[in-house]
C-alpha cells in the first residue's frame, strides 16, 4: 500500500470527529472519500496534509511510519493538499503565489520570474485553464482562486494530491480542465484523494470510493461495483425523516409577506435580486460558492452596501444601512464564521447570550442580575446547550454548542426574520439534527428564515422554497415539492432548468 492511515482518532473538545479510521490508498489511483457534512472527511485529509494532528493512530507512507506535523512536512513527502478555505496571499500576484517558497533565483538574489512564468503558461495553455498569472490573488473569483491553488500544488513535488471539494466553485469548463489534469497525474502514478459531494463526479473519475459516516469508516468500494443509491444509503444511513423534521403543512403562500425584496444589487457581486418572504417560511439560497450569496445575505442585514433596490417590510419601505437598524427591525444574522463574527470567545456564555438584549432586563441601565441569569439559564435548557456553568468561556465549546449559543442570543432579541449563513457548518451530525428541529420550531412560531447553504441535503429538505444563485442573479426559484438535486445543480451551473 502506498499510503495508509491506521486507527486514526481525532477529537475536538467534546466531539470525536474521527473514530478509529483506517483507509489504504494505492499508488496512482483516484480515490474518493464521501460522506455527509460533518462525517469527518475534511478532518481526515487535514490530518494527512499535516494541518491537524490526530490523537491516536499512525500514517504509513510506503510502508514506513511517518510523522506529518505541518503542511510543509507533508509537502516534503510529496503530499499536497488543496483545501476548501482560501490559502493564497492576496497582495501578491498569482504567479508569486504559485512559486512562493520555490522562486528560482539568479544573480544578486534576483528572482527569475520569466523562467517560472514561461513554464506555468505552458501548463495553463495545455489544460486550457482560466487563470491570469498577473492578477493579484485578492482580485480573483472563487473559481480562479481554486485553480491557482491547484496549480500551486501541481508544480510541487507531487506524490499525493488531495482535493477537498475542488469543483464546488468551478465552472463546467474548469471542471473539464481539472479532470484532464487529474487524468494526466494519474498516468504519472500520482495518487489523488478526492472529496466531493457530487457523486456523479466520483463515478466519473474515481477508481475507488471510501465512505465515512459520523466519524466512522464504513467501507471502500471500486466505483465500478457500486451505484449511486447504495452509496447515498451508506453515507446517510438513516431515514431522511430522522435527519430532517417534517415540514409545516400549511400553505405558506397564503401567509403574510414579511419581507419584500425588490431589485437589489450591489453592482459587483449580485444584481436584481427580488423575492417575497412569507411568515413562517424557510427560504433556502443555494448555488455554487462565490456567486453573490454571501454578500447578498449580508446586505439584508445592513452590513454590505447596496447600489440600488429596496426592501419593504412591516408594510413600510425601509432603509437598513447598518446592523443596528437591522436588529431593531427584527432581523437576526448568524454568520458562517461563528468564531470571528458571532461570538466573543474570551467572554462568558452568560454575556454572549445576554448582551444584545440586556437592555430589556435593566432599570436606568443597571442590570437585574438574577433575572438576567434566569432568562439565560432557561434558554440554555430549552436549547440543550451542554455546559458546566454559564460563567465559563465560550471558547471551550464545540461547534454545535457554540451555534446554539448564537441562536440563544438571537432568540432573546425576538427576531422576526433570521438570516443564516451556513447554519450547520462545522457542526457534528447529532447537533445538526437538533438545530434542524429548532429551525422548524421557530417557523411554527412565525419566524421567517432565509438560509444560505452549500449543503445540498439541507437545502432540499429544510427549505420551503429554494432560490438558486448563478453569477449574482437568481437563476431559479423552486418550491420544495418540485425541487430535486439535479434541478438545483443545473440551475447552479447556469443552465435553464427546462433545457433538454
Amino acid at each position, binding site marked *: 500500500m502506498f499510503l495508509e492511515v491506521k486507527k486514526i482518532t481525532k477529537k475536538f473538545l467534546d466531539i470525536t470527529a474521527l473514530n478509529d479510521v483506517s483507509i489504504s490508498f494505492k499508488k496512482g489511483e483516484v480515490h474518493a472519500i464521501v460522506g455527509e457534512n460533518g462525517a469527518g472527511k475534511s478532518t481526515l485529509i487535514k490530518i494527512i496534509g499535516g494541518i491537524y494532528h490526530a490523537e491516536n493512530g499512525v500514517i504509513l507512507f510506503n510502508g514506513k511510519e511517518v510523522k506529518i506535523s*505541518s*503542511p*510543509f512536512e507533508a*509537502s*516534503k513527502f510529496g503530499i499536497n493538499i488543496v483545501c476548501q*478555505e*482560501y*490559502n*493564497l*496571499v*492576496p*497582495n*501578491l500576484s498569482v504567479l*508569486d*503565489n504559485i512559486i*512562493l*517558497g*520555490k*522562486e528560482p*533565483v539568479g544573480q*544578486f*538574489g*534576483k*528572482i527569475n520570474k520569466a523562467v517560472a512564468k514561461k513554464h506555468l503558461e505552458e501548463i495553463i495553455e495545455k489544460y486550457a485553464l482560466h487563470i491570469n498569472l498577473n492578477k*493579484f*490573488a*485578492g*482580485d*480573483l473569483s*472563487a473559481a480562479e*482562486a481554486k485553480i491557482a491553488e491547484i496549480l500551486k500544488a501541481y508544480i510541487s513535488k507531487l506524490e499525493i494530491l488531495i482535493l477537498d471539494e475542488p469543483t464546488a466553485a468551478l465552472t463546467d469548463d474548469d471542471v473539464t480542465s481539472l479532470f484532464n489534469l487529474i487524468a494526466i497525474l494519474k498516468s504519472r502514478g500520482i495518487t489523488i484523494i478526492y472529496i466531493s459531494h457530487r457523486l456523479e463526479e466520483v463515478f466519473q473519475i474515481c477508481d475507488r470510493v471510501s465512505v465515512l459516516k459520523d466519524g466512522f469508516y464504513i467501507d471502500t468500494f471500486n466505483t465500478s461495483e457500486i451505484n449511486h443509491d447504495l452509496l447515498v444509503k451508506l453515507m446517510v444511513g438513516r431515514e431522511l425523516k430522522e435527519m430532517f423534521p417534517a415540514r409545516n403543512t400549511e400553505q405558506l403562500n397564503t401567509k403574510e409577506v414579511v419581507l419584500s425584496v425588490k431589485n437589489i444589487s450591489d453592482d459587483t457581486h449580485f444584481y436584481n435580486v427580488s423575492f417575497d418572504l412569507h411568515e413562517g417560511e424557510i427560504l433556502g439560497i443555494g448555488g455554487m460558492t*462565490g456567486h453573490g450569496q*454571501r454578500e447578498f445575505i449580508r446586505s439584508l442585514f*445592513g*452590513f*454590505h*452596501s*447596496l*447600489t*440600488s*433596490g*429596496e426592501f419593504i417590510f412591516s408594510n413600510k419601505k425601509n*432603509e437598513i*444601512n*447598518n446592523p443596528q437598524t437591522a436588529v431593531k427591525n427584527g432581523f437576526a444574522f448568524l454568520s458562517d*464564521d461563528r468564531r*470571528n*463574527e458571532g461570538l466573543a470567545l474570551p467572554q462568558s456564555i452568560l454575556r454572549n447570550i445576554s448582551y444584545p438584549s440586556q437592555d430589556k432586563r435593566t432599570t436606568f441601565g443597571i442590570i437585574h442580575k438574577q433575572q438576567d441569569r434566569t432568562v439565560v439559564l432557561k434558554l440554555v435548557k430549552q436549547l440543550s446547550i451542554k455546559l458546566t456553568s454559564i460563567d465559563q468561556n465560550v471558547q471551550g465549546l464545540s461547534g454545535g454548542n457554540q451555534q446554539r449559543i448564537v441562536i440563544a442570543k438571537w432568540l432573546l432579541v425576538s427576531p422576526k426574520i433570521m438570516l443564516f449563513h451556513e447554519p450547520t457548518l462545522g457542526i457534528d451530525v447529532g447537533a445538526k439534527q437538533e438545530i434542524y428541529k429548532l429551525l422548524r420550531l421557530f417557523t411554527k412560531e412565525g419566524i421567517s428564515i432565509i438560509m444560505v447553504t452549500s449543503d445540498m441535503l439541507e437545502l432540499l429538505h429544510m427549505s420551503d422554497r429554494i432560490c438558486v444563485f448563478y453569477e449574482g442573479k437568481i437563476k431559479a426559484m423552486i418550491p420544495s415539492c418540485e425541487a430535486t438535486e439535479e434541478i438545483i445543480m443545473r440551475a447552479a451551473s447556469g443552465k435553464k432548468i427546462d433545457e433538454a
Partner: protein
Amino acid sequence: MKHNIFNTSFTKFYASIKSTKRHSTKTIWLLLLAVFIIVSVAVQEFMRPANLANILIQMVPLGIVAIGQTIVMLGGGIDLSVGAQISLITIIASSIMGDSTLSILGVMMLCLFLGSFFGAINGFILKYFSIPPLIVTLCSSFLFQGIAYSIHQTTGGYIPSVFKQIFTASYGFISVPFILFLILFLIFNYLLKETRFGRYIYALGGNEEVLINVGINSDTIRIKTYIISGFLCAITGLYIAARLKSGSAHYGSDYALLSITATVVGGTSMAGGLGSLSGTFAGALMVSMLNNVLNNIGFKFNLQSAFYKDVIIGIILVVSMFFYRKREL
C-alpha cells in the same frame, strides 16, 4: 440609496477575496508635485535654491528611518521604538567617539551593530511572546529611552569635527547625506522588489499562514525586518549626532510619529502587505517639505513654528489615515 461603508478588519477567508485596492505610487508622487507647486506659488522664500537644497538634506534622517518603518509595516508590524533607538545611538556615539580614524570607524561599526541588536530584541520578544507589535515596540521605546537617560540626562558628548564634516558635506543640490539616503533607498528597494526575502515580507503582511505552509519561517522574516529597522535607526542616529555634533536623549523624539506619517502618506497600509519604498520616499519629501514651509512661514511672521509644526503634522497624519482608510487587503 445611502451607502454603508463597513470597514473593520475582515475574517481571513473573505478578506483575501475582496478586491485589492492599491494606490499606485504614481498617485503619491503626483500629489507631492501638486503640493510642491502650490507651496512654491504661495510662499516665496520656498523656491530659493538654498532652501530647496536644504530640504533634500533635511529629509534624509526621516527618509532613512522611514525605509525601516515601511519594511516593518509591510510585514504587518510597526516599530514605535525608532525614536528612542535614534536618541540612544546619538548618546552612545557622542559618549565614546574619539578623534582617531580607528575610533570613528570602530564606533560607527559598534553603533550599527547595536542598532541591529535593538531591532533583534524587538523581533525576538515578538517571536516568543504573543504580544502585539504595538505594545512591544511601545515598551521597548520606553526601555531604550530609559537607557538613554541613564547614560546622559542632558545634551552633550563629543563628536569629532571631521566626522561632522564628512557627513554634512554638500555642493549645491548634491550632498553626502542625500547620496547616503539614495544608496540605502536603492539597496532596500531592490531587496523588496526583486529578492525572495522581499516577497516573503509582503507575504508575511498579507497572509502569514500561507508563508508558513510553504516552509518559510515567518518569525525569522519578521525578526529580520525589525533588525533592518534598528540598523537604519543606527545610521540615522550616527548622522544626527554628526550633524548636531552632540548626543541627546531627545534627538529622536519625533521620529516614531514622523516615520509612520511618511510611510502612511506614501501609501503603505498599516495592516501590512501593501505599499512600496518609492511611496515612502515621496511621503518623506512631503513631510520635510511641509516642515520647511512651516519654518519659513514661522520665521516670516516671527512665530514659534516648532509648536505649530506639531499641530499640523498631527492633523496631517489624522487626515491621511482617514483618507487611506478604505484601503484593504
